[in-house]
């Protein structure tokens, strides 16, 4: 039995990948769940005067724990810049970040005692929830997208993708040499005006009807059987379209992987400011 578990451990540590969600057999998930359940139990079993809020002994305790937790969770931003292995590996840290961050939903909500209003206290709570929800999106994307991204890339680096497209453009130039003005212009536009990336929304889009290459291909295909032999050009264009789609999927995946952070991080700093204001206001009007 002992040998078997040893073998399992070896296999696990030797395995190429153990996701940040499953880290150490969901250790931090269990930890966060126990903390949350305890908090709910104490909340349910105590009946403070005149009601639950941030000012009871439980309220202050939950508030202090939540505030320290928020500060620690924020430190992931510093910690992630130093990748280490072992017990306090970055992966472990990330796993704890996610599960303890989610437990804040319970701790901070109980801290409020379900008293909400248009004030700095609820602002801090709302910003915290924005941070957590955006983080949950991040977890979802990081759990699902890398695999799809890897499948899509087909072992190619981003530089290779761009080089391939550039090479296809060269082929296009070559293949389009015999073409007359109109068609040459179409191909030329396909080379010069095909855009990768662009604005935030464009990166998230799954179809790109305005793509110059796509339009050129459609126009040339329509001429099949005409006076000019567009066969070689359309063949190259079709290959280019495939490459473009792959690159655009990659761009979209990258955008999904990155976009939530553009909410998560600024909301975190807003939250830190609101948290300071919340604490100062409580003690100022003590």
């Amino acid at each position, binding site marked *: 039995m002992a040998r078997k578990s040893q073998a399992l451990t070896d296999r696990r540590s030797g395995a190429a990948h153990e996701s940040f969600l499953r880290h150490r057999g969901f250790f931090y998930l269990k930890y966060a769940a126990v903390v949350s359940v305890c908090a709910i139990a104490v909340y349910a079993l105590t*009946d403070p*005067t*005149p*009601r639950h*809020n941030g000012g009871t*002994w439980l309220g202050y305790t939950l508030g202090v724990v939540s505030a320290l937790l928020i500060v620690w969770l924020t430190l992931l931003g510093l910690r992630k810049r130093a990748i280490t292995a072992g017990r306090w590996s970055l992966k472990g840290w990330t796993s704890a970040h996610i599960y303890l961050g989610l437990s804040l939903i319970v701790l901070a909500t109980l801290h409020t005692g379900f008293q909400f*209003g248009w*004030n*700095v*206290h609820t*602002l801090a709570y709302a910003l915290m929830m924005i941070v957590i929800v955006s983080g949950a999106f991040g977890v979802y994307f990081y759990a699902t997208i890398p695999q799809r991204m890897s499948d899509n890339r087909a072992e190619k*680096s*981003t*530089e290779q*993708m*761009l080089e391939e497209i*550039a*090479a296809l*453009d*060269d082929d296009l*130039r*070559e293949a389009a*040499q*015999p*073409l*007359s*003005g109109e068609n*040459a*212009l179409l*191909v*030329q536009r396909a*080379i010069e005006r095909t855009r*990768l*990336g662009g*604005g*935030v929304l464009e*990166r998230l889009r799954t179809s790109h009807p305005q793509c110059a290459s796509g339009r050129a291909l459609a126009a040339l295909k329509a001429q099949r059987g005409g006076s000019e032999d567009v066969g070689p050009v359309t063949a190259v264009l079709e290959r280019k379209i495939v490459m473009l789609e792959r*690159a655009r999927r990659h761009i979209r995946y*990258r*955008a999904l992987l*990155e*976009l939530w*952070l553009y909410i998560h*991080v*600024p*909301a*975190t*700093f*807003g939250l*830190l*400011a*609101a948290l*300071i*204001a919340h604490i*100062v*206001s409580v*003690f*100022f*009007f*003590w």
Partner: protein
Amino acid sequence: MTATLRFVTRRANGRETVRTVETASNLLAVGRAPECDIHLPDLRVALRHAQITVVSGGFVIDASGDNVFSVNRRSVRKLEGRLGAPAAAQFGPYTLTFSEAAGRLVIDIERVQQTAAAAAPDADAVFSLKSTWLSKRAASWAAALLVGAVFLAFPLASYTMKPNAVAPAARIQAGQLWLSGELSDPHKLLAGDCSACHEAAFVSVRDETCVGCHEDTAHHAKPDRMTLARGAPSMVQRGLRTVADTFNKPAGRCAECHAEHNGADGVAPADAQSCTTCHDGMQARLPDAAVHDASDFGRDHPEFRPTLVAVADPKAPTLTRQWTVPDLDRARKEREALLKPPAGAAACDGFAAGQPNFRGLPHPGAGAGLPESARAGDDSGLVFPHDVHLAKDGCVASLAQRLDAGFGDQLACADCHTPTESGAGFLPVSMEKSCASCHSLVFETVGGLTRTLPHGQTNAVIATLLDFYQARVVGAALGGEGAEDRRRPGAAAQRTAGFREAAFAQASGRAAARVRAVFAEGGACYGCHEITPPTAPERLDFAVAPVTLRDTFLPKGVFDHGAHEIGDLACADCHAAETSRTSADVLVPSIAGCQDCHGGEHAMAKVQSSCVMCHGFHAEDPAAPKLGPTRALREARLFAPAPHPARSLFREVATR
């Protein structure tokens, strides 16, 4: 003429390779088509873009069709050049440079614009959001600074700057941003000024601030007794106390119980825990406490112990709380058995001579003495049988019908007991309002003028009767009004001094007889009051036993009668007045009746009732109306002069 074509290719390292072609023709085709003399393989160049004609001493470039080329960045369709004069023409990415060498036209053909492939873009710029306008850093700074400015700097500034340096509206707004919860109704007025209660920054709200307005609020009990009643704190409580002390929240502050910012009706603690901390098992810690232990209205609450009159005295009655409601009920049943009127006697016969006194207590001069066990009751000093007054038939009912004074066929509770304006309680019963319409104090009607005895002052009653009847007899003797045998004018002279003397003696005797009659059986006072006979038979110093009527028998609790007008619930459902024969009976229902509907604070299928539903906390003047803690607080005197800002704010609003 011929020309030399030099196809120049520049390498990345700067070296150039030149392929030289000597042409034999004067006409040079320029275009993308491979058969062109000057083959320019770029899609911006037409298949047959232009033609160069080499002429003597120069050349001419003619663009074909709609094609153009550029010279000095201008689009042209034709260019004529001289041999020896340098010239350049641009076809798409290619530059054709014309020069002369040994009398021959030399054309350098070089691709000057790089292909897209040559300038490899930065992959990260293409694939990452970093190349968009989004910026985590800028957004983070903006969020932090905005929140910090609006929610921290602005309120801090508005409360640390001098009051007159900040617009009141800005101060109110700042307070709203920091408001930790809705204020209770009575304090809502203060929401505009946090510093009305939070007088100093980082200092918890002090009792002096509260008492600034609530100056009449009394302590619950002596502080040392309360400490004893609370018992030794547990380890948890000691820990919490230490933390609170560390954070500058001293023990026993008003705000410890009166937690503000918890909603409209939150400031008066409504839970039982505040009370049961002491009152649960308090007898063990404080054996001499007057109150019994209580921890839950449904399960652990002592039986009601009405506060009764032991010795009536209008000014300072002696009160007692020695009996519980069941004690009183047992004594009442015993009295009923002992004081049963003889068979066949009418309801009013109790008034007749020889019948038991309705008072039912062994009072000096009362009828039958009662055993000790039957004496538990209220000794108000008044004789009042509820059963006689509420009977369907009998003397009272028939009088009510005869009087035509708005009574129905019989008297109802409401005929004497008038609810207060709030409906919670009842106004005191008074002789003038409730009894006098039947129990008239009119003793004589002469010439349409009624003469009434003054109620409540025995000496005044005696004096009134003596004055009236003596005056009347004397008047008759003088031939004035009321004379019994009128004489003819002029006969006065015949009246002798002896006659006058006899008349005065007769007048005194008759007046005294009237006085005795009023206090004797069947007289106006006798029915309701205990009369002490004169000290000597010839004297008239009758005394009426003092009367003390309780407004409430349970002064430590508040019972809202108005709130209990449910369905067809009648007075008699709780108060057994219809069978009560003596005024010693206490008609307060037992707690069991309350517990039919009311349970403790956490009762499952009953009205959840915590201590403060009936009890107030702060000791109050017994004469003050008992309206419950919240109302009492609201009625705290707001308008007495005091320097406190909160009070002046209240005054300002109230006078608006």
